């Protein structure tokens, strides 16, 4: 795709292997309405390839056409006024949350601020908006104090994990005691038991969901993958 895009010379291009899209609605059609003559050539060249295999959907074309209309008319009161749904909320003032509107019993209700921000981010994820210089977003999550985060997110999770650790600990201690007769206090003095304790605590901390086992394995691979790629050329030298 590179070579054909960059030049029309008779070089044999190295095409990266794109999968061909089942939808043959080429995106080049909108281009034709916008770009000068030269791009007709671009368009036809690309039409003969597999194209970029982009997942082209109807909405895309429609949005592009309305944008084309906007761009063509240089923004001079285009008749095609696209209704842009923006994020709006009475508590969202000048690009940040107006804390005065979140008062509860004389103090700021931080939980409500967190809820509001969550809703805003969810909305924007589904409906991305243009960033505008006249209405900059300046909200910073660090204005919410650390104890509000702790109370809402850390403490419930900590309770859960401590509960798990306690249950595992109790039954492991009972189990070891019933097998070996070594009481809890004596177990703490034994190296093997201390290792078991460490493994139990680490396990409870790291593996919180079933998927975490895979995630951990992938993370370990990831940390060393780049290094391996760089050292690949030196494997040759060792072999020779």
């Amino acid at each position, binding site marked *: 795709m590179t070579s054909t895009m960059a030049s029309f010379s008779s070089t044999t291009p190295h095409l990266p292997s794109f999968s061909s899209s089942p939808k043959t609605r080429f995106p080049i059609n909108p281009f034709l309405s916008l770009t000068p003559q030269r791009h007709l050539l671009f368009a036809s060249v690309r039409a003969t390839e597999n194209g970029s295999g982009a997942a082209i959907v109807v909405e895309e074309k429609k949005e592009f056409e309305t944008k084309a209309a906007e761009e063509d008319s240089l923004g001079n009161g285009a008749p095609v006024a696209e209704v842009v749904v923006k994020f709006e909320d009475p508590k969202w003032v000048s690009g940040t949350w107006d804390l005065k509107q979140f008062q509860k019993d004389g103090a700021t209700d931080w939980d409500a601020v967190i809820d509001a921000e969550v809703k805003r981010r969810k909305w924007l994820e589904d409906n991305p908006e243009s*960033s505008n210089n006249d209405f900059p977003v*300046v909200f*910073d999550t660090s204005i919410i104090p650390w104890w509000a985060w702790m109370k809402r997110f850390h403490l419930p999770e900590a309770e859960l994990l401590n509960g798990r650790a306690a249950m595992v600990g109790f039954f492991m201690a009972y189990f070891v005691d019933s097998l070996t007769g070594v009481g809890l206090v004596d177990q703490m003095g034994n190296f093997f038991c201390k290792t078991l304790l460490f493994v139990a605590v680490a396990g409870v901390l790291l593996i919180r969901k079933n998927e975490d086992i895979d995630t951990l394995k992938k993370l370990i691979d990831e940390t060393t993958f780049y290094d391996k790629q760089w050292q690949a050329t030196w494997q040759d030298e060792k072999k020779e």
Partner: protein
Amino acid sequence: MASVALKFFVGLRQSSPENHRSSVTVISKSLPSNQLHYRRLNVIAGKSSPKITGRNLRVAVIGGGPAGGAAAETLAKGGIETILIERKMDNAKPCGGAIPLCMVGEFDLPLDIIDRRVTKMKMISPSNVAVDIGRTLKPHEYIGMVRREILDAYLRERAAGAGATIINGLFVKMDKPTDKFAPYVIHYNEYDGKAGSAGKKVMMEVDAIIGADGANSRVAKSIDAGDYEYAIAFQERIKIPDDKMQYYEDLAEMYVGDDVSPDFYGWVFPKCDHVAVGTGTVTHKPDIKKFQLATRLRARDKILGGKIIRVEAHPIPEHPRPRRLSNRVALVGDAAGYVTKCSGEGIYFAAKSGRMCAEAIVEGSENGTRMVEESDLRSYLKKWDKTYWPTYKVLDILQKVFYRSNPAREAFVEMCADEYVQKMTFDSYLYKTVVPGSPLEDLKLAVNTIGSLVRANALRKEMAKI
């Protein structure tokens, strides 16, 4: 650090072959010493290879971009018979076009090559939190925006001025040497200037080859260098009205978000008289058009009324090829895969690797009087890996941590508001050294980073519940 490297090279150039060889013998006499000296290692290798009589060492540089141009210039200055083969002399390559400040100094670039000096950047998070960075830049510091056709042509002309022969042609294949010191035979099609002609088939004998022919390198294929993962960068050049262009006078923007790219970023870079709006991805290449539309949507208010004047795409290597060297053929630049993660920067590293490889050849061949061996070229790889490995690794870690997901990107943009981060980022980008910084500030930074990441991830978990 860079200037030290430059001085080292200058020293090499000024010493004549005679003096150089006598100093060589002096060093070799002190062989029994236990100090393992980098220079001495090279000399021993050079001594075992035969002297060339009647001619100088011949090296072919395939590809005339920044890597090829820099390599050819260094080789020619080192007294080596150099030919540079470039298939399209006026190639306006699709490229971000950003060069760091150190490149201007290290490569003696004239200031009129630089179209624009970017001194401000805006990072925009998925929820459109916008952060301005660049407050910490000193008045003389900037990111240079260049037109590739101008930069590449300038470097090639300088190489020609130093004595390299520039050939307009297309490299087809190479014949490996049958003997240890036998020459390589390269086959290329020489273009005679007539448009559309297939060119004349030419064969040439050379002693070493530098593959600087870019991401789809044929030289790499010939030496079975292996493949790399690559990102597709897609870019549209848009001419916007003058009042909107004023905003981008010296400012570049970076948009992050899942809508814009799942593993890279979308950008608006100012060029000579228009802006380049683009995005890239490694893992979701078929969706690149969707990402481009999303990028244009995010920048919509700022590029309203613009006309697309050109559309282009190019591959960006993600990591070096498994094999960057084979006998007397070495890869440099994009062909080797020297593009950083996180920022996708490649021009400076291409030119620098071209120069480093050429320096290694000049030194190993003692200014073209001796044959080179694989070990001489390996010293270039060693020096390169040693000098730039920290930079690449740090950028890799940054990409892994901050381009992972929307919460991570929100945290990333939040961190960019911090002045210490800005200073560190720009210092390491502009001067290409990983600056240690003060430990206390680093600790604060670590704590703040973790805090940002935790907050953003906590918000995301809540989002999943809605």
